[in-house]
């Protein structure tokens, strides 16, 4: 069981999964960093985006990767409107309140999905799903490699956007000092809505990259929400670099946990990391303050 080739394959698989987790976590950490809210509906919104990808494929026959621009744009719009109509109105005051509102939102989304899509597990059969690539002693499914690369490209593009564009600069300004940003004439409410939209757009991208190898059910959100929070807390709330490193660590933890502890007990690693980080080093690896 401790065969190095086996271990190597496990680490590689974890890295590939981690690549997509990074995308999910970057969205969450962006929303936290800018708005200072904990978006508990993050997993449910990802599930919703995964259903969007699934139905684009099932009804119109669009390949999940080809659906990227449409789903990203749609998710951005959805997030933007959601912020304007609901989140933005209540993101002031006690921080538990917005947590409870996003919890309510996730309950609504999960059950609307259950009502309309049914409880069955849905998957997409892409023609290249059975294609494997050999790296060292490991055989890796081609879609996982494509998704991994695409995720890195999208993260890099987002990083570039944040660094160079006017909106990116405004977002960073608001994240650092919202009063100051308001004083120099930045429309802070608009920046909040755009940030929330970008955070959800990341989920749209992640949904497209997940669907070729993953499945979706109305409870998929549950599976991802704790993973996403763990990555963000591990990396440091609001830190992009932290989300990236955290994503890979969690991907590998999950993969090795599954290998050594089995399907059931293997999931415990993520929850334990989450608890330990919060208890011992709540600022995470890269965070400035909790």
């Amino acid at each position: 069981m401790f065969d190095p080739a086996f271990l190597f394959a496990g680490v590689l698989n974890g890295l590939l999964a981690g690549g997509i987790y990074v995308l999910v976590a970057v969205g969450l950490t962006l929303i936290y960093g800018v708005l200072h809210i904990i978006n508990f509906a993050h997993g449910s919104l990802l599930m919703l985006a995964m259903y969007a990808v699934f139905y684009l494929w099932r009804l119109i026959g669009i390949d999940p990767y080809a659906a990227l621009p449409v789903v990203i744009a749609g998710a951005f719009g959805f997030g933007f409107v959601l912020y304007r109509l609901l989140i933005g109105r209540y993101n002031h005051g006690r921080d538990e309140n917005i947590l409870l509102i996003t919890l309510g939102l996730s309950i609504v989304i999960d059950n609307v999905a259950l009502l309309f899509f049914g409880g069955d597990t849905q998957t997409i059969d892409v023609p290249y799903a059975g294609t494997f690539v050999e790296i060292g002693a490991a055989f890796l499914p081609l879609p996982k490699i494509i998704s991994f690369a695409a995720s890195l490209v999208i993260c890099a593009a987002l990083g570039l956007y944040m660094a160079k564009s006017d909106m990116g600069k405004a977002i960073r300004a608001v994240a650092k000092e919202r009063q100051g940003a308001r004083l120099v004439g930045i429309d802070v409410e608009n920046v909040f809505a755009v940030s929330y939209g970008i955070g959800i757009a990341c989920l749209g991208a992640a949904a497209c990259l997940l669907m070729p190898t993953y499945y979706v059910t109305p409870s998929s959100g549950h599976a991802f929400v704790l993973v996403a929070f763990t990555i963000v807390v591990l990396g440091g709330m609001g830190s992009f670099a932290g989300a990236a490193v955290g994503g890979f660590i969690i991907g590998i933890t999950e993969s090795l946990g599954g290998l050594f502890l089995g399907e059931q007990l293997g999931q415990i690693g993520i929850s334990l990391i989450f608890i330990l980080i919060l208890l011992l080093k709540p600022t995470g690896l890269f965070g400035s303050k909790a």
Partner: protein
Amino acid sequence: MNRAALLCALGLLAALAYPLLVPNYLVTIGMLVFFTAFIGQSWNIAGGFAGQTSFGHVVFFGTGAYTSTILQVTWGWNPWLAWPAAMAAGGAVGWMIAVLSFRAGLRGSYFALITLAFAEVFRILANSVPFTKGGLGMLLKSDPRPINFQFKDPIWVYYLALLLCVVSLLIAWHLTRSRFGARLVAIRENEDAARALGIDVFAEKVKVLTLSGAMCAAGGTFYAQKYLYIDPGIAFGVDKSVEMLLVSMVGGAGTIFGPLIGSFTLMGINEVTRWLASVVPALKNVQPLSLIVYGIMLILIVARLPDGLMSLFRRKRRHA
């Protein structure tokens, strides 16, 4: 005050008479209302009165359910003896989570999320370790005699749930009148100010979570005795956590009757959606429908009525 006491007495009389007047199916619904109000009150004591919002309260519920069930099935205990043991276990878990989290200074959303993670750890453990029989769940032998904490007639289960509910109301009532309760409210309103006033914030928060955990565990045992079956998903699933939080938030967090009113409301919604499903064939799958309504209510309550449905009564009374 006298009017309130009179209302309570009348309410109690009605609750006592109710199962004698209605068919068994309605007795069971009444039992569920009081049972949910009871576990909701256990959440409310920590989440409402002391302001320590928990997303993983089910960890205490499951600890109670598993402790009493394991003591009976594996060690042959009598359930009435296993019940206090289960409460002690729930209290111990509450104490442990409180000491760890509050020692680390976790507050607000961070505390909520770590309780969720603790519940998840317990769920995964219950799924994996041999003494809980893993995902198969545990079955209690059916032997409906009062000495076994099992009843043939649902009326006795109803009265037991009512008793639990009344006890929880008395505990909440005591909190509104005692110095302990006042300290909890001070902590909820402003932790730093409470500390400045000389309140040992850490000790009080540990105390309240221990109490809340023990109460919730009592509910877990009650549940296991009623249904004679538990598995990791039931005992440690996120649904029950959300249910406890919902009834308190909807009814009014930090109020005596909040969880009871919330429980009535949610059960009412449940029954209405079930009735709708029987009339409108397109809605054959009702479970999500009532949960959608709950979710919307939670959002509306937090946004518009932070003190829950209870505040509607109060406002009316003030106008009258």
